[in-house]
């Protein structure tokens, strides 16, 4: 404390100590944060209270406070959840999101771990031959009407022959960082480019409008994110633990499941949540791949735009039940998410 008395202006504009703010700055900070709080809360609040309104309360002008200027009713909730059987799309969403996230995290973290710990050398020639043969299969099936089973068998045979004749003649190879980059760069691809062939593929397999189709597709589109995030978690853990386990004779798989995975637990939680949210909210692919049996919540919500005009009260119920669980889960696990994203962004 200095003995010299400070003038009013100095007291208002200068901080009292080194890790605090000047009073004026503090007021401005809180006012701005409060304004953004309003921006975040008002839409959510409006959806929430609209779900307790009926057609009358919505049409006769804005009412803001339940019990004060309108009488809340559970009519819309009853209509959407009990009479209209929203449970089915809801369960579809839960099953698809959880299953695809589990699969993506499992497959993705396995690949990320291998890419961090094991050196890869894939012959460029082999990759090129593979892609050429794949294109050849597609052209053969699409234009010349060759049966796809036959095309695949022939191509596989050609691939093996080409591989044996070329092996050892070329040195050009792709390494770990190339494979990683390829996996991650798949995320750049807009889903609209891939969705038509995926649609046809599932149609041929008679899997259209099933949960399996959605789970498989979501796993694929979220895989790059899992690899991209988890590779940094694995790169961050010290080698000695794994090495000593390997000297004791544990296999790579065992090391992965019993040592590496538990060490990156909190990163995995972040990854899991992020991917879960992405899968839970996914709209475009669900629109293509499901229509009745496997319909998910985003599609159901968007389909509420009926000919009688949107029925805000019913829609609000759907939106509320869709966002409530994710908000609760991620609010609890918030710290993990921020940290996980940070690790990913630092090393990318």
């Amino acid at each position: 404390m200095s003995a010299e008395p400070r003038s009013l202006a100095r007291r208002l504009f200068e901080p009292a100590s080194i890790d605090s703010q000047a009073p004026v700055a503090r007021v401005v900070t809180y006012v701005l944060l409060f304004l953004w709080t309003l921006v975040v809360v008002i839409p959510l609040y409006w959806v929430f209270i609209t779900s307790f309104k009926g057609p009358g309360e919505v049409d006769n002008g804005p009412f803001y406070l339940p019990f004060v200027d309108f009488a809340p009713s559970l009519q819309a909730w009853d209509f959407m959840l009990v009479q209209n059987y929203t449970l089915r799309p809801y369960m579809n969403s839960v099953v698809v999101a959880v299953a695809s996230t589990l699969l993506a995290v499992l497959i993705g973290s396995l690949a990320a771990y291998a890419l961090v710990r094991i050196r890869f050398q894939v012959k460029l020639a082999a990759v090129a031959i593979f892609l050429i043969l794949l294109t050849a299969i597609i052209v053969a099936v699409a234009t010349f009407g060759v049966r796809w089973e036959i095309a695949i068998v022939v191509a596989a045979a050609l691939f093996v022959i080409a591989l044996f004749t070329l092996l050892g003649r070329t040195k050009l190879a792709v390494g770990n960082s190339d494979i990683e980059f390829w996996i991650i760069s798949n995320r750049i691809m807009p889903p609209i480019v891939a969705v038509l062939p995926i649609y046809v593929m599932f149609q041929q397999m008679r899997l259209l409008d099933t949960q399996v189709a959605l789970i498989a597709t979501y796993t694929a589109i979220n895989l790059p994110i899992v690899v991209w995030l988890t590779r940094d978690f694995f790169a961050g853990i010290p080698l000695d633990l794994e090495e000593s386990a390997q000297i004791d004779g544990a296999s790579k798989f065992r090391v992965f499941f019993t040592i590496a995975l538990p060490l990156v637990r909190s990163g995995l939680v972040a990854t899991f949540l992020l991917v879960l949210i992405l899968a839970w909210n996914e709209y475009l692919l669900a629109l293509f791949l499901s229509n009745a049996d496997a319909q998910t919540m985003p599609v159901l919500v968007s389909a509420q735009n009926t000919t009688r005009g949107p029925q805000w009260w019913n829609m609000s119920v759907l939106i509320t039940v869709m966002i409530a669980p994710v908000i609760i889960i991620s609010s609890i696990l918030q710290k993990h998410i921020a940290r996980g994203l940070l690790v990913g962004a630092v090393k990318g």
Partner: protein
Amino acid sequence: MTATDTMPDAADRRSWAEWLDGHSGRIMVLPAVIVLLCFAIFPLIISAYLALSRFALAPGGFTLKFIGLLNFRKLLVGSQQYHLLGKFGTFGFVQFALLALIAAGLFFLLARYLLRGRPTVVGTVGRLLATAMAMGLAVLALAPMAPGGVPGTVVNTLLYVFVGVSVQFALGLGLALLCGQPIRGRNFFRVLFFIPLMVTPVGIAYTFRMLADMQKGPFAPLVRAFGISEWSWATEAWSARLMVLVGDTWQWTPFMFIVLLAAIENQPRDQVEAARLDGANGFQIFRDITWPAIAPIAATVVLIRLIEAFKIIDLPNVLTGGGPGLATESMTLHSFISWRTQDLGGSAAIGYMLLFISTIVCVSFFNFVVRPARRFEA
């Protein structure tokens, strides 16, 4: 696998386990590669084929006829040009001046690279490609904005991507800096500000339709006071676009905020305190300590957002249905609408053009912004 005690079986098992361990790397990566081959590479090749052919329904199925680049021609210079690229206006002085300015800037960057650094072949080709792309996009964006022009879906998408991401970044950074101050309740704000990111975009679209309803929305009394309740944002191109941007910003600002806040919390505390003791003001601290510390992370979050922003469809589809006219239609929505009208070739062609634009923009951003930002840190 369960263990058995019989000797031959155990030996058998050991060799099997050895084989497994020897190939563990490949086995670990294989599932990921197979999944991506099935759902990314394979569909991409088929889409390329679709983009080059005409699809027609025929009795008992469909026919595909190879037509070369006709789909692309139709979209770029033919009957669908107004839809994808928009209607070009006449260039006035302002447009030429802007274009010249952009060209000069790009030329300056290119010249600096060629003269100052040690130019490599790959670096030069990449930069030429990026420059050409930037110039092309600038022309495409300016031409429909000129008097008499109407923007098409490419311009709309670029608007959502560049304006949207910039606004989200600015807001997210501002909020993160505010929250990074020594304030009470930081965790409360962190949790609360994060919520919009989790709301499904379809839900956001309906929510903002409700909020922006001029007669029944929460702001209706305000609107009535201004005497504009007869006006509707949905009937005018720019107000509709603004609405989509508002919804998108509401959802994605939290993403920027949360990562940047974590980065700000990680900045070197001792340096900040030393600077404070030396009497540095807030702006100086931000410029000399905070910004260098968070720049690589900032560049990376913007990159992630860029990648995702190109894919926008849910908001415009539900909020405005792409209208009025095609004022808010994004390229993904355009492709989707083409698919619904059985124009599969056109749909795939639009998808491919989107892939082309977004890949070049994202890769350029990675090479020319993210990489230097990281090197700057190290």
